[in-house]
């Protein structure tokens, strides 16, 4: 990125573009420029997926991973460098992508009995060293892709297990709720990835909700950048504040600070702070290991009860109802869910509260994956009180 007399160009979060307008750090600008040079080769990706289709659905219940090396290119997936069971590479990025994808698979399998992204054992593909000094990681609809970071603002994106859990969870969402990647439904999509990314980390570290840092991307910021991570679920808006590089974390923590924007698909990485805070509230109130109750409520609701157009209020309703189904109506868990959302300015609907009160039997979570993308966001299904069977 260069500044010339007749142009303006800078790399910063959209909300603080002005901060870098006067930047004189040539290295930072150059790194940003490299990140922008996305090769035209990426366009061949769609055609390349075809031959892999048959490989994506096989061997239920078996963890299968492959890691590819882009070597600075962008034509996915790149050169195969490690397969399931293969020996460790001398390349730390390859091993991180492999190990953390494995941890994420194990987490979903052990905690939610889910068999990979599609619940049918889909192979987990990762490509590392994408592009040059690329400040991003993404899910392309079929696989995970990681950049090395520019070394000035970001280090390599494979270094954080929560980043890998986040990207893989986009795959889970794609195969379940298929939340539209736009505005509130998109922010819920991002939120669910942050929740599961954080829970994968907490699960591997055996941390309780009280012990966890609730940060997304801790360790991702390069030395010298003023911040602890990219996002904080516990305190949205406080992850970084560095006028010279990133500016200030723009995430709101409640609905009164919801950001309306046409950037970032309607602020999907910004407004996710609101449900993120709600989830933290719930996990903190329930206590113990967050994946056991709060995580189970969220996973069950997001993979079974939300349609692709779901809004924040739909997520609040679905998680509230799910908490009642899993742990009992009016119990501490359900109260925590209602209060957790209320704290960020979202109230569970009276209809859902009334409907939930009709649930008298503790039902196990549905084991079948939800159909992709239902017509409506979330329609409560009336549950009739079941008569108690008298013994004898």
């Amino acid at each position: 990125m260069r500044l010339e007399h007749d142009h303006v160009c800078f790399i910063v979060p959209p909300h603080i573009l002005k901060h870098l307008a006067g930047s004189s750090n040539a290295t930072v600008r150059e790194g940003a420029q490299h990140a922008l040079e996305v090769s035209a080769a990426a366009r061949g990706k769609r055609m390349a997926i075809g031959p892999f289709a048959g490989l994506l659905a096989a061997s239920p219940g078996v963890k299968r991973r492959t890691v590819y090396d882009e070597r600075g290119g962008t034509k996915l997936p790149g050169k195969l460098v490690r397969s399931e069971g293969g020996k460790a590479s001398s390349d730390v990025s390859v091993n991180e992508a492999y190990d953390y994808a494995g941890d994420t698979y194990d987490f979903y399998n052990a905690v939610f009995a889910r068999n990979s992204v599609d619940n049918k054992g889909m192979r987990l593909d990762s490509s590392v060293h994408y592009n040059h000094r690329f400040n991003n990681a993404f899910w392309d609809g079929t696989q995970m892709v990681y950049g090395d970071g520019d070394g000035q603002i970001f280090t390599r994106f494979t270094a954080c297990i929560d980043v890998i859990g986040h990207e893989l969870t986009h795959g889970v969402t794609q195969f379940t709720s298929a939340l539209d990647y736009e505005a509130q439904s998109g922010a819920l999509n991002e939120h669910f990835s942050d929740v599961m990314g954080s829970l994968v980390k907490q699960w591997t570290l055996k941390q309780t909700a009280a012990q966890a840092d609730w940060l997304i991307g801790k360790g991702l910021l390069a030395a010298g950048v003023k911040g602890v991570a990219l996002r904080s679920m516990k305190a949205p808006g406080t992850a970084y504040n560095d006028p010279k590089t990133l500016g200030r974390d723009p995430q709101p923590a409640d609905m009164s600070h919801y950001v309306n924007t046409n950037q970032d698909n309607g602020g999907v990485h910004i407004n996710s702070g609101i449900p993120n805070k709600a989830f933290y509230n719930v996990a903190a109130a329930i206590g113990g290991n967050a994946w056991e109750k709060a995580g189970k409520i969220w996973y069950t609701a997001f993979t079974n009860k939300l349609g692709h157009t779901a809004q924040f209020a739909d997520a609040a309703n679905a998680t509230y109802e799910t908490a009642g189904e899993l742990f009992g109506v009016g119990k501490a868990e359900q109260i925590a869910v209602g209060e957790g959302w209320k704290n960020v300015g979202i109230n569970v609907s009276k209809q859902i509260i009334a409907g939930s009160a009709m649930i008298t039997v503790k039902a196990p979570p549905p084991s079948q994956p939800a159909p992709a993308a239902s017509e409506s966001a979330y329609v409560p299904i009336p549950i009739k009180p079941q008569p108690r069977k008298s013994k004898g």
Partner: protein
Amino acid sequence: MKISVQRSGGFANIGAHAEVDTSTLPREKADLLHRLIRGAGFPDQPAPHRTPGAADVYQYDITVDDGTGSKTYRADELSMPEKWRAVVEHVLGQG
């Protein structure tokens, strides 16, 4: 003619922006940019290009103002037509 490119989104949500006014450019550079814009084949009715199922990919907005009005064309990193990418890389590269 004014052309601006805005990048947003991505896992880290780090944006980039560049704006060029061809009337302030040397003739040769202005002609090159005009050719790229003409060659981009922007549709009369802008419709966003989006990669199904993808998440955390960059969003690009290309805004072209030819003096009679401005239009914005949106595409994500993976779905962007090749000729649009030429405009994006040129404008951000010049910036």
